[in-house]
């Protein structure tokens, strides 16, 4: 079994962005140690791609933003975390894309702009 096939198998273990435990268990049975290692790597990667992490400056904001974000990232698992460093606003991490809506980032950008 080659890498491409293992990657395909890992992809089939997800339904609407959520990992299907039964499918994972069933597939894992037929893989040797090396293949299993690669299978786990791909599961992790796909899971990462299917997860959106939202950092908020205050946990109270969670209910406010939840609905809007869900509409923007359909079929993705959403995790909300608190980060006081943001001062105000939010930061959204969608796999390798980071969207900054925080005061901290605005201030940093302003400092860079003035320095340059």
């Amino acid at each position, binding site marked *: 079994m080659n890498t491409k096939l293992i990657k395909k198998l890992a992809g089939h273990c997800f339904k609407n962005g959520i990992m299907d435990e039964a499918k994972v268990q069933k597939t894992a049975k037929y893989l040797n140690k090396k293949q299993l290692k690669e299978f786990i790597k791909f599961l992790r*990667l796909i899971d990462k791609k299917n997860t959106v992490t939202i950092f908020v400056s205050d946990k109270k904001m969670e209910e406010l933003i939840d609905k809007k974000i869900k509409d923007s990232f359909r079929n993705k698992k959403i995790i909300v975390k608190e980060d006081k460093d943001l001062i105000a606003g939010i930061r959204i991490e969608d*796999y*390798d*894309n*980071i*969207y*900054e*809506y925080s005061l901290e*980032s*605005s201030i940093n*950008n*302003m400092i860079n*702009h*003035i320095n340059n």
Partner: protein
Amino acid sequence: MKTSDEILKILEKKLETFDNRVSVRNTGIVEKNTDGVIVASGLSNAQMGEQVEFDNKSQGVILNLDEDSVSIILLDNSSDIKQGDGVQTTGKLLSINVSEELLSCVINPLGTPLDGKNKLNKGKLMPLEKIAAGVIEREPVNTPLKTGIKAIDAMIPIGRGQRELIIGDRGTGKTAIAIDTIINQRQTHLSKNEKPVYCIYVAIGQKQSTIAQVVERLKEAGALEYTIVIAASASDPASLLYLAPYAGVSIAEYFMEKGKDVLIVYDDLTKHAWAYRQISLILRRPAGREAYPGDIFYLHSRLLERAVKLNKKNGGGSITALPIIETQANDLSAYIPTNVISITDGQIFFLTDLFYSGIRPAIDAGNSVSRVGGAAQTSLIKSVAGKMRLELAQYNNLAAFSQFGSELDEATANQLERGRKTIEILKQPQYKPLSESLEFLSIWLATSGQIDDLKLEDTQRFETEYHDFMKRKYSKVIDELSKGEKPNEDMLKKLEKTVIEFKKMFK
């Protein structure tokens, strides 16, 4: 000293241009670091050739885009990048800051000064990779680029906008010719009639001591003030060696866009090809002939295509490229030499045997050619060069046959003697480029038979002293010749008289 009001006004002005849009960053994670080549996951929006920044502020360039990962070459020697480190795209293609202030500087391919001067902050950002000017923007090569070397200006003339390859084994005087050519451009900066030529010397994979010698030599000859040296020495990472010629041509393009003429020397492209092979092998690209990657031809063709002569509508600037290639045992048919020969508009081939037999510059006239330079040669040199080339060819034929027989008729013996004198006249010491008028005088002496009665060993001394005599006593004749026009009958008679006069004094 600025008042508080002024300081606040400056800050306010800066804030006016501040754009507080949502910042979107594309990030990735380092998976592997192998000899300066990083494999990172993520970076799904990255572009080929885009600059990236690591957590420790190191810079890199993307060279491979795979399904789940990208390969990045590091632009510095930082070995502390490890698995798990973050990296993010910058949205910028690799560029170099250029302005006139770079003249007389020694920099690395990223524009960092190596001579203790301050880094250039102002200037124009020039991308390292750029598509060469198209057919519509160009015009044929029509202006000579004088090297100051008799053999080259007469037999293998170079025009502004041409790509002329300098090729030969190690230690045959390839770099010396390039340096002489740079030194000779000084007269274009002093003369009012000629357009000045700015020079760029790109040292690729050379020893630091050799680069220092070149810089010192240029400084001594007063050539550094119109020259920029880009140095990627042997101890620099392969990525810098790979980028060096592209940085050079980007700087050249800056001057060319301003309508100026530029001469760029790539010393040498063999080491450039080695650096690219090293990078490609680490990137696991399929290896081809001599383990070079499949796009090794494109590597050099896209670089040398940027040498150009723009038409008047586009400013009339030009970039003349002198790439250097080192051969092994005079083998012109190796992979990289044949590639570059086919890309360029001609080549100057240096032979080890000629070099050690005392013929310097050791140019092999038979294998050297300039495909477009003839159109740029002045009528002055043209009037003597054709005859000289023919006589040299006849001499080479006769010399081969005369080895078999001892008795030769008078005509053949004379022809052989004339050929020997011509070769003697074409010898020229290093770092002693000549003006066009003096080059003409030397070649004319040989082709018109003025030195037939001299002994072979006196030829060079006669030539040098005759030059001094002419400069001293007949400077008007020299000025007249320097116009580049074909000499008329009167002028030739005048020259004959000067030779007779000089011979009376010559001992």
